[in-house]
């Protein structure tokens, strides 16, 4: 998919985020959730945003369609096909949501309204953005449920969320998200709450949608096996910043950032292909994630880093092209002492 990096009109990426920072005012002070993230997404691309809890990946995702809670302060720029979204009036932003940018959330159990039928909740977005009548929306809803792989869609449409399994509900969420053929689909931990066997099916739905509808997808996940399975490119985040960015095959073959390496070592053997029978203890990363209340001018990962040197506390490394003999397509890393691509 590396060929389709630009919007259909050819000038620049579909979604372009520069210097995105998000602060929350809390009773204990200001929380710097995202501290300056640059991100671009091409049409039809599947980009994974990964990192552990609290690294700012979800906040980054929520800030794209302006869905952050009250009290969030957002700075930087989010452009969809060149149109700035952060300064868009609420009304215009609502026209973008669900139509051009839509979302799938982590919790399929609670993300659907328990009081309305699947058909109502699906039809709602069609009536809102496509101006469909109830009858048209109903017919289209059946097609959409079929598209995301729900059997007997004409029956399911009359059912309530509690009558569906978790995997079914997540498929319904995806059907709602793709109902208006959005340019960008943001999926925040879409498979985390599901059984592993169901996960694979849901990921297949995403892949299928990208291939059939050309939807660009931002996939937020802490699960590197999901990244390896579906994404074209991945951004690894740590403490509110991107620390490494590369095409997925390149990232898994030659991780540069010690944090990325730490995440990969924490994967079970079946995923890392270390071989059956040989099962070393999973390696954890020592130490704790730094508090989001402070933002010293140093490498945030340095206290936990096995490769830390004195200069890591002198200033903050910026994301730059990784030194590499291979023609690594846009592999960037924010580290003064990156791994030299020796693999794992």
């Amino acid at each position, binding site marked *: 998919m590396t060929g389709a990096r630009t919007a259909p009109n050819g000038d620049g990426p579909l979604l372009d985020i520069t210097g995105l920072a998000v602060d929350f005012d809390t009773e204990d002070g200001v929380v710097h959730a995202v501290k300056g993230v640059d991100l671009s997404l091409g049409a039809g691309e599947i980009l994974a945003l990964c990192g552990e809890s609290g690294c700012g990946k979800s906040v980054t995702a929520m800030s794209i*369609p302006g*869905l952050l809670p009250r009290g969030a302060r957002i700075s930087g720029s989010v452009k969809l096909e060149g149109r700035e979204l952060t300064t868009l009036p*609420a009304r215009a932003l*609502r*026209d*973008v*949501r*669900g*139509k051009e940018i*839509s*979302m799938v*959330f982590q*919790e399929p*159990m*609670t*993300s*659907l*309204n*328990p*009081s*309305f*039928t699947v058909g109502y909740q699906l039809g*709602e*977005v069609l009536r*809102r*953005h496509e101006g469909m009548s109830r009858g048209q929306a109903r017919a289209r809803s059946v097609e959409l449920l079929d598209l995301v792989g729900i059997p007997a869609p004409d029956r399911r449409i009359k059912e*309530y969320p*509690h*009558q*569906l*399994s*978790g995997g079914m509900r997540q498929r319904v*969420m995806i059907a*709602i998200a793709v109902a208006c053929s959005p340019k960008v689909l943001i999926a925040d931990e879409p498979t985390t709450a599901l059984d592993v066997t169901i996960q694979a099916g849901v990921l297949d739905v995403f892949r299928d949608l990208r291939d059939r509808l050309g939807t660009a997808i931002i996939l937020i996940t802490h699960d590197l096996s999901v990244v390896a399975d579906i994404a074209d490119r991945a951004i690894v985040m740590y403490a509110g910043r991107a620390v490494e960015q590369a095409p997925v095959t390149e990232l898994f073959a030659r991780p540069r950032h010690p944090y990325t390496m730490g995440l990969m070592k924490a994967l079970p053997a079946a995923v890392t292909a270390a071989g059956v029978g040989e099962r070393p203890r999973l390696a954890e990363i020592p130490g704790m994630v730094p508090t989001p209340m402070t933002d010293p001018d140093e490498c945030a990962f340095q206290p936990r880093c096995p490769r830390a040197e004195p200069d890591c506390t002198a200033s903050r490394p910026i994301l730059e092209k990784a030194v590499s003999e291979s023609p690594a397509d846009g592999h960037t890393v924010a580290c003064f002492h990156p791994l030299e691509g020796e693999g794992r």
Partner: protein
Amino acid sequence: MIWFILRRAGAASIVLFLASVMIFLGIRALPGDPAVAMAGEEATPEAVAAIRAQYGLDQPLPVQYADYVTQTLTGNLGRSTQDKLPVADILAQRLPVTLELAAIAIVIAVTIGLLAGIVAAVQSGRFFDYVANAIGLVGLSVPHFWLGLLAILLFSVTLRWLPASGYVPFSEDPAGNLQRMLLPAVVLGTGFAAALMRQTRSAMLGALTADYVRTARSKGLSERKVVAVHALRNSLTTVVTVLGLQLGVLISGAVVTEQIFVIPGFGKLTVDAVLTRNYPVIQAVVLVVVVGYVLINLLVDIAYAALNPRIRFGGGADG
């Protein structure tokens, strides 16, 4: 849904049966022999026995109970000991007055309580929220009799906008009726509105942070639709619960309010009957209140099912 209603109605009729037994036994447990009381101090044992036989008091209790139920179901609730009028006629005269008062109070309370609760939740932490909460707390704390007196002092005595007391049937003078009902209805509805406001606010606050509300916003729905359709629908269960509970409070509130505003309703009838030991009336009043409670609870249960598909369909994939 039909089965659900039938099941609930079955349960309600069991409650009604037990309540009628208790009312029946309660009256018989009162000290004194009614036959002796009717015959007088000087009556001969034969005269007392004759009265017992005439009123069926010599029959075993189950037979007496069956007789009581038959009479009640056919609308014969006995005669008032005060004015010898049939109790059923008295109820037919008094009950509609209180029902009108309660209906106006409910309309006022639901309108104000629901709207204020929704706005307070949407504006939580802002000026309107603080004001609504403060007024709500006062509304909950102030007793009906004090608020009633204050309202009469302000609107009737000082401002002379509304009559202080009295009652005109709606059929005779609709404007005069509403004029006289407004003040007591507001007094009666104040606590109701306050309770409803607070419960609606907290339910809406919960709903507004729910994941499905975030989903609704991510669909690009207007904020009004997010609040009025997605959040409110799920808060209504709480509202219905409060409504059911508060209707009980409303009955006791009506007793006090009717006393203050001199309205010849059910509440005033109750007080007068208790003060004059008018047993047939008391018995009928208790029965009416019990039936009222059971019916309200039945309606609340049906409303739950109508609002919540999980109740209607009796659980699902994950309960």
